[in-house]
């Protein structure tokens, strides 16, 4: 029983991390049909901002964390301004390849300027403590992760529901040019969506660092692949779908680790991806998409 709860919490923690990243991807995708492969590098940049912060002597986690979040948002906006704006109206494959290009550039810049080897970022070691709630031993990190992700998603929902820019982002997912007819600047809407996605990526970076304790240039790659899949399973472009997909993937990961006998460990990926492919063959549009119309994306 104890074990089951422990693993359930594990799954929730993994899932919420995927959900956080997937939400960022879905936000950007839903307003400009861009599969942002470079999202992983936003996470990596946020991670390296923490490394640099420590390097110049900022040691308090209370300062380092906001720096990472701000760095994530900033880098995301920069990517949009420099690389994605010119291909805004191009076919989806063009956006995809541009994102891939950005991702390659940033990974190699980090390799060149910092190091191809992992660097320690020991700022959140406090968090790996275990605390006891009643009879259960629970990792502080996981608890915090759950709480923060819930807060972040809640904040995002509030923003999207109540601020004008939030409303505009939701409206723009279907009717981009009509949003412009409201006098709302298209560039502002897109930049805001990128900033939000970067913000979420920054939060994700903090937790990944807290768990791993170190960073390398390909830091963001694995989580983003997973988040991508989460998005597609959930229904690409649907924010609820991104969260659902992320959670599902978290549970799938943990279930495979728990249920698969040790000697077949190498088949973990094979099984995970088979299930994912099966899911998509069953529901190609994802679990939550209501694809009434994708709206006009020309302007």
């Amino acid at each position, binding site marked *: 029983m104890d074990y089951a709860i422990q693993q359930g919490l594990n799954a929730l923690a993994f899932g919420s991390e995927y959900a956080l990243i997937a939400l960022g991807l879905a936000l950007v995708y839903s307003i400009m049909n861009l599969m942002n492969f470079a999202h992983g590098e936003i996470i990596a940049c946020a991670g390296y901002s923490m490394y640099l912060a420590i390097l110049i002597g900022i040691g308090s986690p209370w300062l380092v964390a906001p720096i990472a979040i701000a760095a994530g948002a900033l880098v995301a906006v920069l990517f949009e301004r420099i690389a994605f704006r010119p291909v805004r109206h191009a076919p989806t494959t063009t956006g995809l390849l541009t994102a891939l290009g950005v991702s390659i550039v940033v990974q190699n810049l980090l390799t060149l300027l910092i190091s191809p080897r992992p660097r320690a970022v020991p700022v959140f070691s406090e968090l790996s403590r275990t605390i006891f709630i009643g009879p259960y031993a629970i990792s502080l990190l996981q608890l915090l992760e759950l709480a923060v992700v819930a807060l972040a998603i809640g904040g995002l929902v509030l923003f999207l529901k109540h601020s*004008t820019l939030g*409303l*505009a982002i*939701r*409206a723009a*997912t*279907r*009717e981009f*040019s*009509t*949003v*412009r*007819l*409201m*006098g*709302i*600047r*298209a560039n502002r809407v897109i930049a805001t969506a990128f900033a939000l996605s970067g913000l979420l990526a920054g939060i994700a970076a903090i937790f990944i660092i807290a768990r791993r304790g170190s960073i390398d240039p390909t830091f963001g790659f694995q989580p983003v692949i997973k988040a991508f899949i989460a998005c597609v399973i959930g229904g690409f472009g649907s924010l609820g779908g991104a969260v659902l997909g992320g959670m599902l993937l978290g549970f799938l990961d943990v279930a495979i680790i728990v249920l698969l006998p040790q000697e077949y460990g190498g088949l973990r990926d094979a099984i995970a991806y088979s299930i994912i492919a099966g899911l998509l063959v069953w529901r190609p549009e994802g679990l939550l998409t209501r694809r*009434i119309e994708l709206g006009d994306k020309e*302007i």
Partner: protein
Amino acid sequence: MLSVNRLSVHYGPIRALDAASIRIGRGEFVALLGPNGAGKTSLISGIAGLVRAQGRVLFEDREIGALPTEDRVRRGLTMTPEGRHVFANLTVAENLRLGAAIRRDREGVAQDIEKYLGLFPILRERNHQLAGTLSGGEQQMLAIARSMMSRPRLLMLDEPSLGLAPRIVAQMFDYISLLKEAGVTLLVVEQNVMQALKHADRAYVISSGIIRHEGKAEELRSDRRLIDMYLGN
């Protein structure tokens, strides 16, 4: 108020609008008539800046041809697009709020919302319903009300009667006339020639991307030959 000088619109090799010139005075209600594919949408999209266009567009004596759509809207010129381009995944109330996105006067916005909910009572009933679930006519009312929320001085409506039942069409035109009385200058694209000519002051007739005729609405209404030739009634 608006003066369009030799405006042309191309889509790749297709010339949708060929050096069209129109003028609209303050407070006028002008109809833009023409068969399908004539270039009506292209003309007003060009004026609104939604498509790239060559030529000059003067709005309140200032050249706006180089401005992006957003800035034209901020200067008081807006357009309600053809078809039901309401924000389907937002509620009626949220649609109206977005319509007022560029305004900073909270009270004025609240008053305007009240005003249009009063004008279109059905929208008040549906206030917290998703716009995508409204009927076609209700969506059209919402689209017009939403455009009005930015307090435009010139409003261009693209086929406001599209897909509406005849009785609702007449009602729609009554509403549009109310806007005119409120001091808004109107450029209305219509297939519904007779209804449009009944309410408009003046009309332009366009076909194959070229402005063919311009005149007072009453005169046009009695000119059967012209109507047959271009509008095929």
